[in-house]
């Protein structure tokens, strides 16, 4: 989404923001994860991907979803996974979508983006490619994404550049270990004529187990905020709106869009409030239900509830509430914090204080479970069928 004169000033509560909070006829930003299969095993994977799920949507069902998105005038879809290029019908499906006027932006780790495929993509209209890396060098990147991942991603970028694809995107999840490389990421993007995209690490999927050691410190958050403020052209998918409490609002809508302007369709067709809440509590329905995706989006109990006015709870007395609106629902949920309180990374430290409070007692922290991870660590979470674990934190 871009800055636009027809938009209100960001973050200030406006009738438009309020309207968005109450939901739309169809999502503005829809993420569709095509498969849980992945040839990497990133330690922060939001969807705990690894193995394909036998229940994944068939090619015919997937085309049916595209038809629905076309009818709903969803202008583009953000495709991810897993590694979406693993699906044998990947190219058929994105061609089908583009032909129906549903633009495709897809995220890939680049390992399967050969020269031939780069050339195919370069010949398609309305397809954007986003290559994920999490470090500006192999050491930093591969610590998170696995050995060889950096080299493969760079090869994919080279292939796109060579094929004349045009400005692709380089997408980075900001961690404690790569904040110092922001300028290096910017130089890398510039060297390809690519667009830089930074997003926020959430304690979702396998990220639940690595968030504590990977999420940026308060000082790093401030550095990031000022860096982003100086670079309105760096894309963020609106993910750092909790930083707007530091002062001038960042670009974007600055609200939690879960179930209001965004949602997720997972590989088996389940619809969740956002890509970071793959948990039964935030499952609104399935595209396989009667009425399909449209009915889930417009009528599901969960989404209806999310579109009602939300309580500011413990944040009500904070002068920054209008700026950050309490932050990210997924981050609160998977750290065990109440949804009507501060974000765990609240810039005023209210989240850290709340997490300290949690440490004082054994508390049930919702856990995303092992998901489709290939290697299951013998943790309490994997033994517990309802994906809840007793955590004493720290």
């Amino acid at each position, binding site marked *: 989404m*871009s800055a636009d004169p*027809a938009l209100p000033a960001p973050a200030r509560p406006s009738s438009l923001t309020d309207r968005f909070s109450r939901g739309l006829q169809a999502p503005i930003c829809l993420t569709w994860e095509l498969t849980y299969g992945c040839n990497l095993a990133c330690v922060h994977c939001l969807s705990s991907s690894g193995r394909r799920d036998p229940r994944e949507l068939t090619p015919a069902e997937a085309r049916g979803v595209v038809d629905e998105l076309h009818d709903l005038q969803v202008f583009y879809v953000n495709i991810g996974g897993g590694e979406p290029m693993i699906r044998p019908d990947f190219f058929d499906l994105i061609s089908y979508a583009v032909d129906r006027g549903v633009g495709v932006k897809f995220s890939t780790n680049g390992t399967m983006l050969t020269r031939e495929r780069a050339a195919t993509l370069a010949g398609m209209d309305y397809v954007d490619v986003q290559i994920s890396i999490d470090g500006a060098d192999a050491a930093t990147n591969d610590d998170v994404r696995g050995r060889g991942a950096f080299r493969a991603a760079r090869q994919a970028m080279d292939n796109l550049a060579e094929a004349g694809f045009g400005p692709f995107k380089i997408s980075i999840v900001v961690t404690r270990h790569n904040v110092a490389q922001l300028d290096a990421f910017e130089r890398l993007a510039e060297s390809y004529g690519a667009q830089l995209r930074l997003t926020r690490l959430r304690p979702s999927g396998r990220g639940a187990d690595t968030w504590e050691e990977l999420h940026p410190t308060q000082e790093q958050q401030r550095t990031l905020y000022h860096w982003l403020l100086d670079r309105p052209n760096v894309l963020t998918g609106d993910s750092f709106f909790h930083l707007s409490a530091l002062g001038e609002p960042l670009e974007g809508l600055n609200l939690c869009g879960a179930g209001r302007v965004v949602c997720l369709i997972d590989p088996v067709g389940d619809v969740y409030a956002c890509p970071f809440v793959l948990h039964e509590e935030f499952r609104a329905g399935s595209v396989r239900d009667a009425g399909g995706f449209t009915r889930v989006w417009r009528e599901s109990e969960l989404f209806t509830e999310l579109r009602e006015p939300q309580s500011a709870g413990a944040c009500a007395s904070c002068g920054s509430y209008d700026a950050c609106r309490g932050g990210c629902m997924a981050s609160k949920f998977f750290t065990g914090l109440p949804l009507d309180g501060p974000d765990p990374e609240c810039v005023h430290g209210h989240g850290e204080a709340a997490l300290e409070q949690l440490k004082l007692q054994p508390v049930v922290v919702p856990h995303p479970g092992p998901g489709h991870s290939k290697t299951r660590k013998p943790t309490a979470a994997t033994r517990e069928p309802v994906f809840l674990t007793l955590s004493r934190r720290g």
Partner: protein
Amino acid sequence: MSPTTTAAFDAGLPYELHPQVAIRPEAFGGLAYHYGNRRLTFLKAPMLVELVEALGEYPSARAAIDTHVPEPRRPAVERALSGLLASEVIRVR
């Protein structure tokens, strides 16, 4: 703004919805998506959606505004059209 934007909005000229733009009506107004530059723009009033879609049928933007927009809102609507021209939601005919 797009580098292809050349002229400022002039209500005396004829405009039309850009052929690469699709509009999805919403209760607050509508979403305009430009398939060429991939930009999403919010139209903040249903009346603005109606106006933008009708622009092509009038000899000038002013004629369209006079028909579709109540007088007190005309200056605001002209400013909105100026923004929509800059983001290529509308173009000179």
